[in-house]
């Protein structure tokens, strides 16, 4: 169920809660917590490794507004297509997911956030979202992730 919901290579809202069938190595129901809190405008570098293919970050909105969560990997890195999953914490009752542009290897998920709310930002690669049951995560490579405040205008422009 999880894999099916995550395989959607676009923006997804209101996906079903994860099903905890059996312990998994590292996936949506048990990502590796990085203990990193994203700060608007600052970029955090990390590396996805086999067995640690889902990295979780925290983000708390200081004010109500719009955040573009971004993840990028080197464009030549064909085995790491950035994939972001944003969830309201702690209940995880809303989700937004997106897969990166495979040419630029840049993924952006735009979320309207509420002041004071905490969000889990889960970074992985699209390859990890479509693994067959029990499949081994093979993603291995660097990426960078950020929470970027933006302002949407009626024309869709950025400031």
């Amino acid at each position, binding site marked *: 169920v999880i894999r099916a919901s995550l395989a959607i290579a676009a923006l997804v809202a209101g996906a079903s809660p994860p099903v905890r069938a059996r312990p998994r190595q590292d996936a949506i129901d048990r990502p590796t917590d990085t203990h990193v809190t994203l700060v608007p*405008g600052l970029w955090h570098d990390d590396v996805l490794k086999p067995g640690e293919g889902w990295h979780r970050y925290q983000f708390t909105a200081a004010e109500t507004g719009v955040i573009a969560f971004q993840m990028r990997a080197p464009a030549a890195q064909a085995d790491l297509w950035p994939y972001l999953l944003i969830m309201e914490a702690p209940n995880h009752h809303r989700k937004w997911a997106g897969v990166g542009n495979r040419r630029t290897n840049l993924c952006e998920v735009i979320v309207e956030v509420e002041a004071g709310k905490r969000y889990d930002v889960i970074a992985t690669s699209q390859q990890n979202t479509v693994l067959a049951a029990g499949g081994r995560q093979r993603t291995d490579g*660097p990426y960078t992730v950020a929470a970027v405040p933006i302002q949407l205008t009626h024309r869709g422009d950025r400031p």
Partner: protein
Amino acid sequence: MKSSANLLCAFASCLAACDAVGGMQGVPPSAVPVALSTEAQGARPELAQPNDLSVLYPLATSQAAFERGYLTPASPGLGGALLPAAVYERAFGPPGTLQLGGTPAAPALAGLRMVAFRLDPCFARTPATPDAACENQLRVVFQTLRFDGTQAIAADDAVHAFYTLRRDQLVAAVQTSIALRRKHAGDQRRLGPLAPHPILVEQGLERELAASFNQLVLQLAGARNLGRITQVTASGLGTAWNFSGVDVANGVTSRMTIPTVPAGTTTVAFFAGFSPGQLTGQPAFTPATEAAAADDLQLLGDVHRAARAPAADRQRAFDATFRIEDPALHSPNTIDCASCHLAQAVRVMVGEAAFHLAGSAPELQGEAAQRPASAPADRDVNVHMFGYKGKIASVHQRTINEVAAVTAYVNATLLR
């Protein structure tokens, strides 16, 4: 190069941004002459040249030179290690500790090598600063270096350590540096514009001059008089730079106050975006500056944002780059680290390349006016104002301006 900005009286360097004391934009330019002429300096070899006062070491070209030519944080200086590990750890956490927002840990001490040092008789001086209030200072520039088998290569990071000197120590150090130049190159030698020290380049780092410079630094600097540490690291897969620093007093560290940004800001950052050769970061500067409009260059941090702005705003931001690089107008006490370190990049990559803007820079004389030729490969953002990015030596215009002012002051005041 046609303004009347006074470069005689203000010395500063931007990775040192410290206690905010307000902007200097209201200070009128002075008509005081800038520097002794090249002819006068040439006739008096006992006077200082820019490369006597700010010494950039060349990148080692042998393993032996790499291992023996550079000082390290652990090198024994005044009252202890040049950059004590305990103080560094108090400042930035144990090795590997991430900084704000998961930005990279401060560079590991183990990989740092001293690539430059700078003597400054009046750090962050403004035209209003009396001589008696001058802070005499030695700054040591560390970068992470590795040797690739043929040459040393610098990582895209830096740590600056600032040491407080007495005036007599500063004068003696200047005289020692001049004496070393005369000893190794004679009285007629002009070292030219700021660059990797020409005699060090000729001799290599295994010879006497490098050892003498290193000895000079170790006699002047160490745990006893360390007053500040600043650092920059890269993130965003090499597209973002994060600046922070601490003040040090008796080994106790406290976060440095960064001017022109919201109170409490401890880290400032610049994001170049993911388009090579272009500045497209959104936002480019974090946090946004609170500087006066005349000193706000941040519009030029993103070429798309600049394109949407009125031409007058672009020109004002472009002119701000020159103001920020003018030590008579700005010092680390008046402008944030990111604006200072990116002034040259945004001016060249956006102001000049994208919008063909032109403006006025402070007028320099003699060797100070000779800007080192840009390396052909150096088209990307380079935040190193006196150091290296990879194999490329980097000397920013701001540093050239500062050293011109320092040289003039030293020759007119200390060595007369």
